[in-house]
Structure formats: C-alpha cells, structure tokens
C-alpha cells in the first residue's frame, strides 16, 4: 500500500475516539476528565514501542488484528444501536426496533461501500470528515460554554474512582488497534505522528468531557448518554435549536468509525486471502454484525475490554519485538 499521512491516521483514530465519547454511558465528572486524560497519557506510553517497530505484520499479528477489528467493529455497532434511540430520524417508529434496524442497516450499507474502496480512500475521507466534524463540535462546545455554570463541576458525580475511569478510557479506545496496524504504513517520523495524535486526543477528550460536565452537571449520571444530552441542552440561539447539527456529526462519525474498522479488517483479510479481496469489505461487515449480536449485553467498559485494547496496543507489539530478538518472526508486508 502507498503510504498514509500522519494527519490521515490521526483523523481516523480521532473519529473513532470522538464516536466512543458521543456514545459514552454513565455519569461524568471531573474525575472522569482526569481519569480519561491520565489514561491517554498511559496509552501514549504504551504506544511508544510501536515507534521502534520495523517491518510489516507477521501472519500471527494479522490474524490477531483481523479478529480484533471484527470485535471492535461489533462493539461500535452496539454503541451505535444503543445511541440511535436518542436521535430523531423521520421514520414512523424511529425510536423502536425497526427504526434502529433501519439506521443500522443504512449505516452498514455505507460502511460496506467504504470498506470496498479501500483504506486509503477511507483515510483521505476521514481527514475531511474529521475537520468538518471538528468545526461542528467546536460550535457545540462554544455554544455550551457561552454562559457556563461552574457550580455544575462540583455537582457532577460519576460514582467511579480515577483507576476505574482510566480503565473506562482504555475500554473505549478500541480504535488504538488501528495505530498498531497502520503506523508502519505512515509517512514521516512515527514518534512525531504518535505524539500528535495523542495530543489531539487529549484536547478532544478534555473539551468534550468538561463541556458535558458543565452542561449536564448533576444530572449526568441519570441521563443515558451525557454527551448527546449536553449537545441537546446547549443551544447557541434563543429562538431555534441545533440538535440536528449534532446528529449530522454523530451519523458521519458512526459511519466512519465502523467503516474504517471494516476497511482495516478487509485490508488484512485481502492480504491473507487475495482471492477474497473483492468481497473482504462485505465479509468484514457481516462478521462485525455477527460480533455485535454475540457481544450485545457485554459491558463495554469492563476490565476485559480494556485488557483487549492494551493487548492490541502494547502486548502484541512487545511480543513481536521479543520474537524479532530471538529471530523467529516471519514478516509479511501488507
């Protein structure tokens, strides 16, 4: 594959992170902001071995990351399924089962298309989508911060300690698997790219969480999705509402988050089974849908999800490094 740029990789990962933030469930407080920020610093440290890695993925790594993408894609489908009930689409039973199926089905169709055109096109589109979405998020954030009630910072309760929030931060950072897979294909200095991405992620997470805490404050723990509720409560104009603006960002980010996982999985599947290259995108989406069914009801912010992310980000590259040292790695360039 021709090289991706650092900005494109960062955009792909940030879209996934932003979508996970939109689908954030449970209370938010300053502890959440601190925990998630500390988690990002830890993630940065865990990602450092990736900067030293040379060469492409081995067969074993390809197998692991293909399964990882399918699992994380399934989780994203579940997040989208849960959150879509909060969004209005003009369908007579949009809040019900059929409405959710319609939303998921349409998103799935677009994701199949994204995965069929390849990771490079998805990366280019992500950069534009991330920039446009960033502007929309900035509008929502600024409209929320026009007349902040700082007292909400004290009133907000997440009911979790900092360690638990760090775990939650890892569990919702499934996109980091993409960092391990795609970083070898990125132009420029790897450390520079990694640092840029995590800095942007820190700014994004902190601004969204603090804005959400300021807007929802004391009711954040009783709203299903505090980030969505914060967008609905913060309006820049007195005589009109901009909820739909947030819905556009949500839809675009949902499509790209899932589409990128599918495209990445298809990228690996197509490499392992060249004969299946043309169908790899559709196969990935079908497998992700299956994974979503199997994982429905599984708590997203569990220890096991966090452990899976750490394994993808840190465990596998370290094992690969040890194998390289011993000299038993069979590298297959993607």
């Amino acid at each position, binding site marked *: 594959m*021709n090289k991706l740029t650092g900005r494109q990789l960062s955009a792909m990962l940030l879209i996934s992170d932003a979508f996970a933030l939109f689908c954030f469930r449970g209370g938010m407080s300053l502890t959440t902001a601190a925990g998630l920020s500390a988690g990002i610093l830890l993630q940065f440290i865990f990602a450092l071995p990736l900067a030293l890695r040379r060469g492409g993925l081995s067969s074993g790594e390809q197998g692991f990351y293909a399964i990882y993408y399918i699992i994380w894609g399934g989780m994203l489908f579940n997040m989208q399924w849960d959150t879509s009930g909060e969004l209005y689409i003009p369908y007579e039973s949009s809040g019900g089962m059929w409405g959710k199926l319609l939303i998921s089905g349409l998103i799935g169709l677009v994701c199949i298309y994204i995965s069929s055109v390849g990771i490079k096109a998805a990366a280019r589109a992500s950069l*534009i989508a991330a920039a446009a979405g960033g502007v929309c998020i900035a509008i929502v954030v600024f409209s929320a911060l026009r007349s902040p009630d700082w007292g909400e910072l004290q009133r907000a309760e997440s009911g979790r300690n900092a360690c638990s929030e760090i775990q939650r931060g890892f569990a919702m950072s499934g996109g980091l698997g993409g960092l391990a897979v795609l970083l070898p294909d990125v132009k420029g200095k790897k450390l520079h790219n990694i640092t840029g991405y995590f800095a942007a992620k820190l700014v994004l997470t902190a601004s969204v969480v603090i804005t959400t805490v300021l807007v929802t404050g004391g009711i954040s723990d009783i709203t299903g999705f505090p980030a969505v509720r914060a967008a609905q409560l913060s309006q820049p104009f007195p005589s009109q509402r901009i909820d739909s603006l947030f819905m556009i960002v949500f839809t675009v980010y949902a499509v790209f988050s899932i589409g990128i996982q599918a495209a990445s999985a298809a990228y690996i599947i197509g490499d392992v089974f060249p004969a299946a290259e043309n169908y790899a995108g559709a196969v990935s989406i079908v497998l992700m849908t299956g994974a979503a069914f199997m994982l429905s009801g599984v708590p997203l912010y569990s220890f096991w999800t966090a452990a899976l992310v750490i394994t993808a980000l840190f465990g596998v590259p370290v094992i690969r490094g040890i194998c390289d040292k011993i000299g038993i790695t069979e590298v297959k360039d993607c």
Partner: protein
Amino acid sequence: MKGELISGLEKNIEEINRRTGGSSDILVNRFVTGGIHCALLCCEGMVSTSVIAELIFEPLTSIPKKKDAHQLFHYISEELLLSTDRPEVTDYDTLFSLLYSGFAVLIADDMPLGLGFGVQGYASRGIQEPSGEGNVMGAHEGFSEVLNTSMSQLRRRLKTPELVMEMMKKGDKSNTELCLCYMKDRVPKELLRRIRSSLNSIKLETILTTGYIRPFVESRRFELFSSTGTTERPDVLCSKLIEGRVGILVDGVPFAVVIPRLFCESFQTLDDYAYKPYYATFMRWIKYMAFLTAVLLPAVYTAIVMHHPELLNSTLLMILVESEKEAPLSILTEAAGVLLMYEIIREAGIRLPKPMGGAVSIVSGLIIGDAAVKSGLISTPLLTITALAIMSGLCVPELNPPVTILRFAFLAAGGILGLFGISLLACAVLVNICATEDYGFPYTAPLSPFISSGMSDTAVRSSMKDMQERGFTVEEYHE
C-alpha cells in the same frame, strides 16, 4: 497484392478505384510531364485548389524532359521543393492516409513510389471565443477543430523546445490524429509512460470526441467526478503543461484533455490570476459555496421543512408554513418536479433549433414558472430555493453533470430520511471523491492528503511573486 504501390500507373489507379469503391471524392488528374505519364491524386474538399494550381501544377507541367520516372521524382523532390511536407509513399495505406489528411500524391508510370505534397485547404471554423469557459481579462481565443491550428496556438504561447507535441493516430476507421503535449522538463516520467500505455490500449474504430479517449486514461472504478479535465482554452492548457500535466489534443475537437485533474481546479479560472489576490480569493470561496449550495440547498431545505423545523427560527418558520400550506403536493414532490422541469427545459434549450429559443423562454419562464406559482402548484420559497441552487451550479460549469445527479440524490435522501439521510449520502459521496485517483494523483489533493503549500492556490490565491518562488509542479501531489 501486399498493399505496396506497383509500377504501372493504370494498375495503380485501378487498385485505388477498387479500394475506394470508386468514391467520387478521390480526384485523379492525369498529365504528362518530362515525357512521363503521371497522375496527381487528391481528395476533394481536403486540399486548397488554388495552392495546387499555383504551386503544384504550374511548376510540374514545366519540367524539361527526363530519362525516366526515377529521374523525374528525384528532380521534383530535390530541386523543385513544391511544399514543406514531401513524404514518400510506398504503400496504399500511407497513400490513403495522406489523401484523407489533405495531401496531394503524385504517382507516375513505371514508378513503385508516390510523392506527397502538403496542400491542406479544407474548410474549417476559424479561431473563436470559447463558448463554455468565459473569461474577462484573458485571451478570447479557444481551440479550433483543426489539430495543427490548436498545436500552433500552444506553440505561440510556449516558445520553448521543452514543449513536446507527439502525434499519433488512433481509430481503425477514423485514423484520428491525437497530439500528446507535455513539457519534457516538468512532466513526471512515470505519468507520461502510463498515459502512453493507456493510449496504446485504445482499439476503437473511431474517435469523434474527447469522450472516446477519456475512459482509457481514467480509472475503471466508478467515479462520480472525472479525474481528467477538458479545456477549450489554449492559455489554460499551457498553464497546466507548465505545472507538469499532460494534454491530449484530438483532431476535429476544439477541446483538450488534461491529465491529471484535481477537484480544486474546477474552481480556478484564468481570471483569478488577473485580479488582485484578495478579490480572487473571495471569488474562489464564492464558487466553493456555490458548489455546496448547488448540491445541497434543495435537499437541506426539504429536510428541514419536512423533518427538522426546530432548526428554523420562528419568523422564518411562519413564512414557510404560510406559503407551503396552500401547495397541494409534498415539498419533496414539488422540489423534484421543479428540478426535473428545469433539466427538461435546459436540454430542450441546448438541442432545439436556435430560432425556437424565444418560444422556449416564453413557455418556461412565463407559462410554467409564473402560472405554476400563481395556481398554487408550487410555493414561492421552494421555487426561489431551487432557482438559487440551479444558478449556483452554473458558477462551476465543469462540474454540472455530477452536480445535477447529486442534487437529485441528496434531495431524495433529505426528503425521505431528513438530515440523517443527507449525512449518510454525504459520507458515501465523500469517500467516492476521495477514492478518485489516476496515475497516483489523488483527486482531492491538496486537501486530503493535506499539503500545506498547495493551500496557497486553493484556500487562497497568493501573489504571483510567491507562486514564482514556489515553482509548483503536479508531482508534489503524487502518492
């Protein structure tokens, strides 16, 4: 017979008649000069009769007696110098190719060879102002249908040996001449090699427009936007060549194909470089907004009014409610109907005979437009919105085909699924645009992949001094 000319004059003429089926546009002028029986062949309408009479026949008929045909041909070729182009003809394929390109060919008895003379003089449209690429401050001449004239228009602007124009013939039946133009010091070698290879894969019988060759130099993947461009302006093509792009001129077509083409170039005109940078930048952003307006405005209006009225402030909402409550059709149907009607009128305007243009204006403007609003079939705000979208589309004429289709697609998505539908379709379209790439040049460069130096002629139009220092070539965008 292997297709080579034979020695006997009559046998040659018989063979020519047999091959052409006695086509009446092949003229055979028999005469005797230098004591040798000869014939001058030409194609009626392709040659200048006055040039033939003055510069060919007059000297030919006054040749002193020669020993044989070989001596006669040597004399004509080496001493008379009847024209600047004097190709030798050894076979019938070359002979017909030259005849149909406006050459006169001399054949003689006992001579298995012919001599061609470039005396082209076919009727053609002169150099005129381009009809589709308007310009205020620049030159007002466009390419012509005659390839040689178009080539000379380029040469007049780029008087450097670095400009290379390679001729080739394509089309088994049409034998159309193509001219590959590039600056040999600027063009990426790999791009040139791959374009040549793409052109070599053309096995068409005829090439009548640039549309015949464009699919061969574009990606096979479904692309909404074309990754090759066309221009009818020699000055625009020169500016592209200077940037390392490749141009293809086609004989009989007053347009050149430009490879590669980027999305941002559709918003650039030569006038941008004639005005002050601040004004050019302003106009460029107007065109970006016009493009978005052309594609999205009817869809967003329909989606908001039908499904998301909370986005409107109360005053605007009341105005729209008041005007829409009288309309009998749904807003989606109304909007689709108005857009469809416009497309029909536009197509009729292009195809119909010119004297009927006034009638179409009356029918479309007065009868359909005015009567439809007055009768309450169409609401005034909707008509205003669609008119605005259509006018906006005209700001970027090159993108009109995809804009037209996308306008309908977004309208359907917005009318049925609201902003959710528009967002979904926007994602698919964005990915499609980003997947558009030919010969390794992404269509969306310099936006994605983001190349900050490219922004100086995309987001803004920086000064000529800055651009001179930058020395841009398209290779910067290669991935």
